[in-house]
């Protein structure tokens, strides 16, 4: 299935929750969706017979200045098609529904995005830092991040 066909199918079910399709060859086409309906959209992307996206290739967090973004790369092993889903949330309240119950792969990926970008995945069963120490403050891959002076009595820079 081509990206525009996937877009039309999703549009027919979720109407205005699906914001737009951006086709930008040769990079992957992506569909922007409303973050509040993300869980239901991902659920039908995995389970509907014409989608069958059984493989979450990657989950990435982004800092876009005012907004934070989450990018999902999906692939269907059975139907051999792929799509990119993006969702944007404001930086003050970065709440995105967790897809960890849909694809188990998302568990650690979401923890990484939480650790470095600070996206709050709601419904994740164990949303704690994965790479940095548990008592680290701030989210280092945000553009406005400034590193602390000291950590546990050790000079940082």
């Amino acid at each position, binding site marked *: 299935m081509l990206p525009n066909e996937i877009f039309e199918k999703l549009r027919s079910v979720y109407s205005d929750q699906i914001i737009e399709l951006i086709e930008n060859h040769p990079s992957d086409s992506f569909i922007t969706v409303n973050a509040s309906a993300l869980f239901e959209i991902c659920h039908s992307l995995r389970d509907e017979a014409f989608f069958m996206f059984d493989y979450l290739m990657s989950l990435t967090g982004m800092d876009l200045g005012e907004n934070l973004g989450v990018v999902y790369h999906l692939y269907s092993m059975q139907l051999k098609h792929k799509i990119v889903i993006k969702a944007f949330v404001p930086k003050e309240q970065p709440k995105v529904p967790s897809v960890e119950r849909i694809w188990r792969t998302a568990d650690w990926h979401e923890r990484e995005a939480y650790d470095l970008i600070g996206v709050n995945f709601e419904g994740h069963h164990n949303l704690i830092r994965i790479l*940095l*120490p548990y008592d680290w403050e701030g989210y*280092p891959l945000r553009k406005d*991040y400034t*590193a*602390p002076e000291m*950590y*546990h009595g*050790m*000079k*940082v*820079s």
Partner: protein
Amino acid sequence: MGLLNKLDDPYDGGGIILGKVEELLNWGRSKSDWYLHFGLACCAIEFMAMNASHFDFMRFGTIPRTSPRQADFIMVTGTVTFKMADRIKVLYEQMAEPKYVISVGSCSNCGGPYWEHGYHVLKGVDKIIPVDVYIPGCPPRPEAFEEGMMKLQEKISHQAIFNKRKRLGIE
């Protein structure tokens, strides 16, 4: 074989070697150093080549240990992150005296490529534990490991054991 043959015959060849007990002890100490290998990054991969038969690190009398209690020196090979820095300190403190540290590669010497913008990297392992030998390189060649090991042996074989405080002028 010359030395051993002489020792066989105490009357003709002598059979006696004169020397200091301290030198004998230091000779033994420097020729059998067991190490706690602390592999953290790509230097540890180079260290695998060093340990394998081509370069044969064990000819220096070194045996890898997995416990700090049995180790004479710790080999810090790789990038020391702040998360790991706490652990290195604990392991170093668990080692029995006398203990030594070899810092391998740019990362553990001074922070390496993370020296300016690495918010998560300790800028040199010598900020938390005293380092005896630095091996430069990114990663160092096995020859550099050999040189570093010989430097450590040299250092150990010249150390004072008896009347240490008196000789160092502390008392």
